[in-house]
């Protein structure tokens, strides 16, 4: 019984996160400006890290945690570099 509650809530959580990723992708596609797209990509990678953590709970393996950590690290660097690019027109001055 409790295992069924857990598996249903894992499924619902995955569904909600996938819907959220869909919203973020829609904002990336529509814009209207570059900063909106960067913000949506930022949201997208955080939701992807959350989805990987939920996959880890679903499969009971700790490997997914490392993937989520790498996504969180690289996403921060990507957003910082992109906002630097929006401000100055180049990343490394």
């Amino acid at each position, binding site marked *: 019984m409790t295992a069924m509650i857990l598996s249903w809530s894992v499924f619902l959580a995955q569904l909600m996160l996938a819907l959220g990723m869909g919203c973020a992708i829609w904002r990336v596609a529509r814009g209207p400006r570059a900063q909106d797209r960067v913000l949506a990509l930022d949201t997208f990678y955080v939701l992807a890290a959350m989805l990987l953590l939920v996959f880890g709970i679903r499969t009971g393996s700790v490997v997914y945690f490392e993937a989520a950590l790498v996504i969180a690290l690289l996403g921060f660097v990507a957003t*910082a570099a992109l906002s630097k690019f929006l401000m100055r027109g180049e990343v490394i001055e």
Partner: protein
Amino acid sequence: MTHAESLPGWAAILVSLLLLLGAGLGLVGAIGLLRLRNFYERVHAPTLGTTLGIGSILLASMLFFTVLQARPVLHEVLIGVFMVLTTPVTLMLLARAALYRDRREGSAEVPRSTTGEG
């Protein structure tokens, strides 16, 4: 999910609640990203998912593996600390870049610079 059969009931329910709360906050943040009107309103919405949402999913993961493996599993704290530290930095950089771009274009929607430079 055969590995979850050995999980006690209270832990399963707590993990379920935390998962649904985290995923729901992430979804609300993403919908806010879609629905709000301009960039300066939209920049607030995703922080809901990136701090509180990922926080509660990390708590759920910590609780799940701690109870399942009968030893403290705490490495999720790493992602939590990292997210809480980096989210304000990235969004502040992004908002400053957007403000700079809007001022460069002479947009009427943003306040003028008081120091004379962009």
